[in-house]
């Protein structure tokens, strides 16, 4: 029994997304494909222990799933018009499998469906995590701080929308691709950031989705090797992830400059640098590449004792130009402060819309730091309080409380 479960689990992990992508790109109904695939996995757990694990578990699951799809379609007369397409799809699948060639990888289509303009922005990342990686709604919900019931409901509605709005399962044309690709990249990056604060003050709380995000970015670079921003995103996450173990020891947050570089994952850094170099070679800079270059500068400042303060100011300047997000603006202010331009840094922060900064923790942490450099102690203390009050973990709170009491 445990062998069969292990085989099913293994197939689920490695092939879930490919199986689902293949099935739903033919049925155009993600929810129905998911149900059929779930039935197929259940059937596997019942049959495999008795009859042994099939030679190609993927093929077995695919064949079983499409049979379930046809059964379900027959039962619900409304989808009867789907049956010819399904039968054709099944034949195609069996042909592909009997040729011993892998069935086509349709996950790119699935990624683009999930980030379609008709799909609400906040549900794109969860939808990707569920359809491409097979993550369950409860795990996704806790990473995004949403109740599991609400998350399930939102996912169901999103899939219904794909079906009712007839969102096409074709990869978009080159012109349409650019904005859609940005949405795909942003959704992948959101799963990296989910559940842990993107602040320099509290990088300690992790959701466990970082690995999934990196997997998705790697998948994207495999499916679209000529897109520099895909490589940029991959590089960005690898270079940040490589430092995870050094960020927090004994519940104490360790800022970059004080980290023990022996705890960094140098293989991951090398891999990240290679990805960034691949991106640059494609000759089309974009925000994710610039962000990766910023991480790369931080890394080399520590590993090779390079002075990168001016580089960082220039990189952030470019980033703000390309994508003036609140995070980029706050990062730019931080870089200015490090380059002894605290007054300019404060001006940069003051120029931001108060509604965007009100609950953005890194804004208050950086502002507090800048004010303390400028010896505006009272204002700095107030800003530290704001940053502490908005923090989500004890390591960050402790770090900021110490900074505040040192004023």
């Amino acid at each position, binding site marked *: 029994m445990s062998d069969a479960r292990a085989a099913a689990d293994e197939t689920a992990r490695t092939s879930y997304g490919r199986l689902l992508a293949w099935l739903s790109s033919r049925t155009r109904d993600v929810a129905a494909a998911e149900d059929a695939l779930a039935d197929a996995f259940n059937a596997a757990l019942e049959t495999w222990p008795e009859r042994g694990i099939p030679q190609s578990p993927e093929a077995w699951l695919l064949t079983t799933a499409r049979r379930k799809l046809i059964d379900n379609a027959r039962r619900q007369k409304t989808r009867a018009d789907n049956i010819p397409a399904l039968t054709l799809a099944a034949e195609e699948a069996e042909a592909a499998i009997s040729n011993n060639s892998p069935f086509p990888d349709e996950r790119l289509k699935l990624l683009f469906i999930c980030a379609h303009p008709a799909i609400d922005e906040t549900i794109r990342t969860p939808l990707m995590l569920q359809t491409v990686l097979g993550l369950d709604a409860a795990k996704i919900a806790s990473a995004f701080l949403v109740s599991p019931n609400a998350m399930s409901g939102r996912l169901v509605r999103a899939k219904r929308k794909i079906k009712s709005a007839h969102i096409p399962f074709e990869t978009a044309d080159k012109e349409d691709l650019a904005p859609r690709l940005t949405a795909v990249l942003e959704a992948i990056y959101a799963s990296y950031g989910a559940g842990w604060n993107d602040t320099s003050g509290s990088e300690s709380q992790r959701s466990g989705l970082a690995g999934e995000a990196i997997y998705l970015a790697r998948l994207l670079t495999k499916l679209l090797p000529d897109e520099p921003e895909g490589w940029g995103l991959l590089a960005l996450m690898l270079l940040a992830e490589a430092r995870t173990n050094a960020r927090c020891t004994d519940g104490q947050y360790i800022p970059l400059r004080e980290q023990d570089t022996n705890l960094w994952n140098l293989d991951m850094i090398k891999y990240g640098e290679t990805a960034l170099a691949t991106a640059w070679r494609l000759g089309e800079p974009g925000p994710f590449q610039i962000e990766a270059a910023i991480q790369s500068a931080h890394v080399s400042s520590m590993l090779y004792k390079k002075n990168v303060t001016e580089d960082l100011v220039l990189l952030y300047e470019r980033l703000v130009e390309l994508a003036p997000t609140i995070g980029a603006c706050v990062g730019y202010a931080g870089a200015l402060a490090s380059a002894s331009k605290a007054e300019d840094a404060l001006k940069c922060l003051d120029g931001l819309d108060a509604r965007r900064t009100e609950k953005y923790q890194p804004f208050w942490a950086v502002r507090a730091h800048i004010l303390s450099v400028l010896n505006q102690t009272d204002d700095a203390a107030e800003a530290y*309080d*704001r940053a502490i*009050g*908005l*923090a989500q*973990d*004890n390591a960050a*709170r402790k770090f900021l409380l110490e900074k505040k009491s040192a004023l």
Partner: protein
Amino acid sequence: MNYLFLLYDDEDAWDAMEEAKRNDIFGSYMAYTEALKKSNAHVAGAPLNHSREGKRIRQAGVQDGPFADGKEQLGGFYLVDVKDLDEALEWAARCPCASYGYVEVRPAWNVEQ
């Protein structure tokens, strides 16, 4: 929408805690309350004394605290006014109690409507 945050933690641990750590936690709560106020989400809130000082009253009479046999006891509360449950959960996650105990989030009835 009003939501009540019920803060549960190990109240005996609090009693046994060293001064410096207690000050840290105290400072964290002050900052959290301030952040709620600055965002106009704060309606009310207070830490509670040890549950052994609590009383329960029902028709049968009065019972002395502590009440539950679980380690975690109600130690404080916030009443917040926010847009929806998502925002309430976002604020609850920032509550220091979520880092070492747990925060129960309950939608409150709007009696006036």
